């Protein structure tokens, strides 16, 4: 086993990886940018190296520098976390060339799955279903109609040149087809200067469901069941859970097999995630494979009891998987809420500044994977995710209740966060009933935001009284609302005293 691992990342995932390393008796090396000198991952680590200025292109993406640190520190392996260099084939190759172990899949697997077309072509050689459609843009309208009839209506016409719904049309019947293609082509031309369109099967009420994969270097590949990730806002996941309230055992078995087949098709090694779309009829289609640890991996850890980072490290050290497929069973239900430094009331604008007060929820079944601290500054340089709140309980309803309790308990003062937004989602009937799909946010946006800004008379009076009090405080130049002298710590007193 490795004696020392460098974690080429920051924030919650760096801390997450370091925790497991330390439990395994492995020393951890942190890297940090100018902006992160006192970040939690630096304070946690055994060693920490400055690698450049704040912008990530000059620090966390600066892999020659990171390799230099790995060599200088004597680290035997590098864990890339997610994001940054985790899916960079050049980095993976360079690490290996330097005689250091890259904790992740071989560069070849990253390459195949990193390219949508290559991935789709790889899948077509397997039994794993992909979303049916034309692989080339429509040239001949009657040939296109044949394809559409083969796929079965409704079909989706999608612009080749761009996204965001422009040049997109749902066609319900053959007689609307030609007209719709024409409109989509013109709209696409005007929006992107590119009139080419594709046809794809239109999935009704689609679910985003992904399977966790583990594969070792000895040819063993297993899956650890699914995560339901349909709660998204602009393709960004907001809340994930496991098990999915939509998937039954039969479908789970089938999709699990497909996920394993997907991983095997690219000779996958390590932890990976196979993403599927599942329509209302429970047809599932391969979407993509993420060749790294996923943000939402803790929900799988909470229900299976498997430490995915420990498995990654064991696999990278050449060990066989700790579990066979038959040993994998799940207990209870886990829900993850992503907490962002964003202002939900103002179109999720990022929020920066000092965390002036922090109370992280805790207690039974309550886990927060984060990297924040009272007094720390949230800077504008990196992803605005502050951490993930994962709640586990025996059943889904208890996990929902626990999540709601924990979100209510969570207090971050000084910046805006999505804590309350997550609470609105958790409280929403459709979410509680588990009958949601990827349209959830779009469908219920207004309700969610109305809930966010709902105000009782009581709350209005508290707000008014507080503002009045605050203004008075400022008027009278006093911070303290208590006339009682506050005793401070020795540490602080002494400093204050000596500096007078």
């Amino acid at each position, binding site marked *: 086993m490795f004696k020392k691992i460098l974690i080429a990342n920051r924030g919650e995932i760096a801390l997450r990886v370091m925790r497991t390393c330390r439990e395994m008796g492995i020393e951890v090396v942190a890297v940090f940018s100018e902006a992160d000198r006192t970040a939690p991952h630096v304070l946690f680590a055994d060693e920490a190296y400055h690698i450049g200025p704040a912008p990530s292109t000059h620090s966390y993406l600066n892999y020659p520098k990171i390799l230099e640190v790995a060599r200088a520190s004597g680290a035997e392996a590098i864990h890339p976390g997610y994001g940054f260099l985790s899916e960079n084939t050049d980095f993976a190759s360079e690490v290996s060339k330097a005689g250091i172990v890259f904790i992740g899949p071989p560069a070849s697997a990253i390459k195949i799955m990193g390219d949508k077309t290559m991935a789709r072509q790889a899948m077509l050689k397997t039994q794993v279903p992909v979303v049916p459609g034309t692989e080339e843009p429509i040239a001949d309208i009657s040939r296109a109609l044949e394809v559409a009839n083969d796929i079965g209506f409704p079909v989706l016409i999608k612009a080749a040149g761009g996204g965001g719904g422009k040049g997109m049309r749902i066609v319900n019947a053959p007689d609307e087809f030609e007209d719709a293609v024409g409109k989509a082509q013109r709209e696409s031309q005007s929006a992107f200067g590119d009139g080419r369109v594709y046809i794809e099967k239109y999935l009704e009420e689609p679910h985003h469901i992904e399977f966790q994969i583990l594969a070792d270097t000895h040819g063993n590949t297993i899956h650890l069941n699914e995560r339901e990730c349909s709660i998204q806002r602009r393709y960004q996941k907001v809340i994930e859970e496991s098990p999915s309230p939509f998937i039954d055992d039969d479908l789970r078995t089938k999709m699990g097999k497909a996920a394993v087949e997907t991983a095997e098709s690219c000779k996958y090694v390590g932890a990976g995630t196979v993403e599927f779309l599942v329509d209302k009829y429970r047809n599932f289609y391969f979407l993509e494979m993420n060749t790294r640890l996923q943000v939402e991996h803790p929900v799988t850890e909470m229900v299976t009891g498997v430490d995915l980072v420990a498995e990654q490290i064991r696999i990278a050290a050449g060990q066989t998987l700790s579990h066979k497929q038959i040993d994998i069973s799940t207990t209870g239900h886990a829900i993850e809420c992503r907490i962002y430094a964003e202002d939900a*009331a103002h179109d999720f604008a990022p929020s920066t500044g000092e965390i002036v007060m922090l109370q992280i929820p805790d207690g039974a079944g309550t886990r927060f994977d984060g990297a924040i601290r009272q007094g720390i500054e949230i800077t504008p340089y990196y992803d605005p995710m502050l951490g993930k709140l994962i709640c586990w309980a025996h059943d889904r309803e208890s996990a929902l209740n626990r999540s709601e309790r924990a979100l209510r308990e969570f207090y971050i*003062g000084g910046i805006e966060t999505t804590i309350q937004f997550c609470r609105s989602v958790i409280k929403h009937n459709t979410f509680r009933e588990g009958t949601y799909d990827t349209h959830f946010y779009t469908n219920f946006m207004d309700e969610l935001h109305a809930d966010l800004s709902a105000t009782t008379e009581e709350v209005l009076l508290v707000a008014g009284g507080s503002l009045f009090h605050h203004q008075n405080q400022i008027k009278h130049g006093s911070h303290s609302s208590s006339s009682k002298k506050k005793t401070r710590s020795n540490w602080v007193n002494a400093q204050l005293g000596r500096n007078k």
Partner: protein
Amino acid sequence: MMKFEINANNRSIEANFTGESSELVIKTGENELRFEAIQVQPGVHSVLMNNRSFVVGVCPNEANRVNINGTPINLELLDAVHLHLRELGWDSLKEVKAGLISAQIPGLVTKIFHGAGDEVSEGDPLFLIEAMKMENEIKSPIAGTVKRIGVTEGQTVEKGTNIIEIE
């Protein structure tokens, strides 16, 4: 005793406040409420109102944004003077909407949509600012004419930097 109108999220309530320290008596309609606040951290107060417990964040930079148990509320607290002015036809809210637009977050100004002298309507995009890997579109809070532009495209700005003035 001071008379106030509290407005937020399309709700409005009238109340009388007695006291001016951390302990108030709030009267509204038939109800009389004992309000007591104590600072927990700078800008964060623990409030007990008739023994109901709230954690209240007050963010004085953004005029009148208050956060109750984590929920942000944009508040208008009108005293007798403001109420009288409103009776005379002045709308205090409109006054607040100043034409000087500054960066609410530090970041990189990637795009400025207007030049000096341009006419803009309320809600028109003014500029884009990139922070935390995301692009943010800043819209005009008022209609008017662009008077001055304080930065150039590609410039990195600190929070609070003045970007555009509209009159």
